[in-house]
């Protein structure tokens, strides 16, 4: 039996459905991320686990116990708020010890635990500071320590790093993960940043408009997106329409040019349209791969360690991004240059059939 179990969760606010049929079973000690764009229901789901919202339907269970109807202060679930929500009238020690004090723990035990936690978050000398005297990153750490002080069964974090700058974000997310590992605490981490989710999680729940699009390890979600939404939200920039030419052999026609997928197409018959995706880093300039496409360079962008080249395919309707590692010996084509890009059949991911092929699609392909 899973440690944290959400079954058939629904949440409606009047007419809007914020969460629709949400099912998740997280193991003890697992780090699960909810990943999705703003407004897709991540916070609402988290708040239902914490007890701040009541699900319209479904149950929340922790360690086999149904806690759906329990008040927030009767659950043992620690939450780190997006805004930190530190109490401004208390020092760092006061904030961290709050949960223990309201549980009537003896003073010396509270003090000892506060000291331990401040060590854990690397702020041992900040016990007497007030929140306003701390930087954003320090406040974030204190919020984490405060949530951990009560030894919760589940730790919830709602976009905990979104207010911090990029460098500190990376440092802190690694710290959060290290602390989570050392305590072995079951954790749900909400983020809209795919890189954060990919780098931290044991499993990622990708959400869109209140629904789960896919649950899987970072590897699965990145390499084998289940839907075109996942493919485009988790890193892939090239999501396009192709026509099935030979389903059994994985033959497709895209932009009037034939390509091959590594596996047979099972979701649509010959002649039907499907959505396909391939990642920029799987493509290369030149003729090395089995699939080749001709096109014209639209523009070239330096992104630090990689260079992104966008190529108009022959018909002009489709733009494909190609990522190559930056390297001083690289010869970068100029905008307007005629190029060939190539990629192996394994790079081609055949996703669901698009809603309905439009007339323009068919004309463009003909």
């Amino acid at each position, binding site marked *: 039996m899973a440690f944290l179990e959400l079954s058939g969760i629904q949440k409606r606010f009047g007419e809007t459905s914020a969460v629709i049929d949400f099912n998740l079973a997280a193991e003890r000690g697992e780090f699960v991320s909810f990943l999705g764009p703003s407004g897709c229901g991540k916070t609402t789901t988290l708040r239902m686990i914490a007890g701040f919202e009541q699900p319209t339907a479904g149950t929340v269970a922790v360690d086999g116990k149904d806690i759906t109807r329990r*008040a927030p202060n009767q659950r043992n679930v620690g939450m780190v708020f997006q805004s930190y929500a530190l109490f401004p009238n208390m020092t760092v020690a006061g904030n961290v010890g709050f949960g223990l004090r309201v549980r009537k723990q003896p003073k010396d035990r509270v003090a000892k635990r506060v000291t331990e936690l401040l060590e854990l978050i690397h702020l041992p000398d900040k016990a007497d500071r*007030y929140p306003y005297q701390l930087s954003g990153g320090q406040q974030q750490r204190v919020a984490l320590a405060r949530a951990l002080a009560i030894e919760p069964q589940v730790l919830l974090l709602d976009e905990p790093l979104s207010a911090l700058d990029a460098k500190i974000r990376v440092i802190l997310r690694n710290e959060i993960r290290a602390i989570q590992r050392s305590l072995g605490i079951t954790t749900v981490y909400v983020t809209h940043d795919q890189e954060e989710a990919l780098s931290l999680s044991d499993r990622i729940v990708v959400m869109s408009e209140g629904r789960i699009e896919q649950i899987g390890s970072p590897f699965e979600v990145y390499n084998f997106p289940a839907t075109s939404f996942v493919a485009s939200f988790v890193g892939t920039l090239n999501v396009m329409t192709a026509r099935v030419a030979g389903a059994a052999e994985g033959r497709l026609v895209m932009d009037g040019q034939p390509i091959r997928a590594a596996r047979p197409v099972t979701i649509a018959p010959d002649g039907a349209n499907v959505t396909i995706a391939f990642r920029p880093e799987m493509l290369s300039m030149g003729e090395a791969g089995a699939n080749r496409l001709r096109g014209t360079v639209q523009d070239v962008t330096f992104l630090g360690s990689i260079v992104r080249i966008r190529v108009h395919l022959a018909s002009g309707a489709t733009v494909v991004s190609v990522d190559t590692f930056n390297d001083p010996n690289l010869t970068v084509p100029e905008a307007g240059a005629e190029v060939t890009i190539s990629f192996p059949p394994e790079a081609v991911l055949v996703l669901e059939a698009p809603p309905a092929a439009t007339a323009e699609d068919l004309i463009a392909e003909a």
Partner: protein
Amino acid sequence: MTAASSLTAPGAPAARPGRRFGFAWIGVVPFVLFAAGFLVLPTAYLLTGSLQDTHGQVTLQNYARLSEPNLASAYAASIEISLVTAVGGGIFGFLLAYAVIAGGLPRFLRNALMTFCGVASNFAGVPLALAFTFTLGASGLLTPLIKSLGITLNIYSKTALELAYMYFQFPLMVLIIAPAIDGLRRDWREAAENMGATSFQYWRYVAFPILLPSLLGTTILLFGNAFGAQATAYELSGGTINIVTIAITRQIRGDVVNDPGVGYALAMGMVVIMAVSIGAYSLLQRRAERWRR
């Protein structure tokens, strides 16, 4: 310094140190004028007046007379009325404001209530006294009703005056404390609950300490508001109730007793009481606000 440097356009030569504060003092001028015109000059006028007898001779006699039973009891009554209405208005005003904000009243009702409070907090003097008399006076609208309940209210008493003052103290409190209550973040309550706190513990350890400086400040304001009120009391009691503002009126404008010097000394006493309460307030607030910038 920041103001001066932010006014310097990028690329412009750095201002020389000597010129930095060049015109900064201009900003202070309105404040100085205001303080002089509305605070220092009147106080100085009162002070000189209070140190002269009716023939213009310098004397401390006016201050000595403040200990006469009649005048001393005016202070006692003023302080009592101000305290009772400040604390009473403070508590009930706070509760109403909290109920309105936390109770999830529709926006338009809330706005209507705030507007009403804005008007009602200025409802004082002759109109209030008349309204009060028509409602609870000897032949007032509600008088038979409360009589039938076995309550008698002497409209010339301190209790009646306190009740009348509540008509502006209460809405004034609602008006001033509402923004402070609005400032309590939902996150704080949720974080407290999340850590296992009961609603009482949240109030005891988080909300109340955060509101305390504002509560202290507004209560002092209500105290001063009641202490300085004159017209309502004068109209309501026909000038018979013995509070400081009416005692001053009597000394300066009265036919029976008339000694402006004593009136000025009485007023100086008020200034001192206000100064002490403001001083006490700043001290308390500084302690209550340690956690603020």
